[in-house]
């Protein structure tokens, strides 16, 4: 299995139909390319970061690999399994953490985690033993395990999101802006946890982020995604060299002609976030 790439994406395309302004009857429909012929390979155990503005296609890539979208062309394989032909087999290998923690807010962390675990074939006996272990691993106080999710801070909720992903022992972990909106301390805790997952759980990690320092600190290689196209995919040093920049921010600006502070691509192109 080690000879098979963890992720192999070839010429992957995804388009969305958007309606221009005006009434439903008069509004013109147009196809907007979210991903335009994306190709890359990830080896097992690798951490790859994708940098891009909102609407650059990062979330579309994560959702395609999560089997939540169907492609319009090209292919994607996870450990040699076709994502679009055999989605169920891929679903057993993949889990994700996104920018929003996304839980049943009235239910407790224990209830939410049990619910998620059932979908991956874990019965009550197994989860009773495993959930406290995982919560300890992510540094979640056990005495708060029965409080409603809505009473927990955003940082705490994101820890539960990480626990949910880890509970199913994914060999491919998709992280879609996992630290966006977190306070500095929570952000560092989440980043430490991502490192632990790589070191101790043999996970391959695809990290989509806005945060250049985070990308550089965690990833082996960094890709810049701009208007659905992958402009480069190499180490941070190689990117700086390629774009004649001292910092990754400057390299990003030189590569795309835009900074993160500029208007979101999303609003210009009509690609969903």
């Amino acid at each position: 299995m080690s000879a098979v790439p963890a992720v192999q994406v070839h010429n992957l395309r995804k388009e969305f139909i958007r309606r221009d302004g005006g009434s439903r009857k008069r509004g013109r429909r147009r196809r907007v390319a979210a991903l335009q012929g994306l190709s890359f390979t990830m080896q097992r155990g690798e951490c790859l970061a994708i940098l891009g503005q909102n609407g650059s296609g990062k979330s579309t890539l994560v959702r395609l690999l999560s089997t939540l979208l169907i492609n319009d062309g090209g292919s994607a394989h996870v450990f040699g399994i076709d994502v679009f032909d055999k989605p169920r087999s891929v679903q057993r290998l993949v889990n994700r953490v996104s920018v929003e923690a996304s839980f049943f807010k009235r239910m407790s962390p224990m209830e939410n985690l049990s619910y998620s675990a059932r979908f991956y074939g874990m019965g009550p006996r197994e989860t009773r033993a495993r959930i406290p272990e995982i919560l300890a691993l992510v540094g979640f106080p056990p005495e708060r395990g029965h409080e409603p999710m809505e009473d927990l801070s955003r940082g705490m909720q994101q820890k539960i999101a990480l626990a949910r992903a880890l509970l199913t022992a994914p060999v491919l972990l998709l992280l879609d802006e996992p630290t966006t909106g977190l306070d500095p301390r929570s952000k560092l805790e989440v980043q430490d946890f991502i490192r632990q997952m790589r070191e101790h759980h043999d996970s391959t990690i695809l990290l989509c982020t806005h945060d250049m320092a985070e990308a550089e600190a965690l990833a082996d290689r960094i890709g810049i995604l701009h208007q659905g196209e992958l402009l480069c995919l190499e180490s941070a040093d190689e990117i700086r060299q390629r774009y004649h920049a001292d910092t990754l921010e400057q390299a990003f600006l030189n590569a795309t002609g835009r900074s993160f502070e500029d208007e979101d691509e999303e609003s210009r192109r009509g690609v969903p976030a």
Partner: protein
Amino acid sequence: MIRPEQGGALRRELIGFAGIVERNMYLIRRFAWWELAWFLYTVANTLTIVFIAKGIEAGGGHLDVNRTTIVLLIGAVIWSYLGLIFEIVTETVAWERWEGTIEYTFMAPISRASHLLGMGAFAVIYGVLRTALLFAVVAASLSVSFGNADFAAAGVVLLISSVSFIGIGMMTAVLPLISPEKGTQLGFIAQGLLLVVSGVYYPVTVLPDWMQWLSVISPATYTLEGCRNAILDGASVSQMWPDIWPLLVIGGIAVPLGLAVFRRGERYAKQHGRLKRSG
């Protein structure tokens, strides 16, 4: 003979199925006071309907008040039951979208059949208990006589008809995937249309011919007729075979059809990027 890998897959599906039921029980417990408030509303709504019979008599009309009250009671209770089944099955998408968990649930390795049937199983368990309680509370508020009613037989008819209702519920559950804003309301429209052609408060013979034709393919027609036969006339399960076999046939068609419709809708949502929290 089941091979070990098939046994493992079956076990995973059963655990996933039970997980759906378990999650809904957690939610009912967490929203217990809202459930109680909603139950009181349903009781009040049902009472406004069943008192119509006494109202007509008080206005000078001539009718068998006891029988008409029970006819209306059964209609109102079945309406409530059907509404609950549709609501819970439709929440397969609507509630998950609202909570933001929809992407996690739809990327999980569980078959859509186990997922939807899990929702249906919970809907039936909760619906039957709630309906029995509603019937008991409203009946206790009225001075009606049930004579030789066979409540067990009525319960059997209700359970058999639930299979058809789950199948139709699966078809309406897909609507919030296609239209996040209005899909759930369209489910209520389907419920209303189903009951209007099924003789919810009147015999289907009073309907125009084209509606009577539709009543033949509506499972609610046989549910209402079966329950009325059992409660008003004490009909046993074997005596209600003419009501039961159409329910079995419709259920046998509705569930696979509902699954096929839902899968089609899910594919559409995946193609158009609708399978996400914000719609």
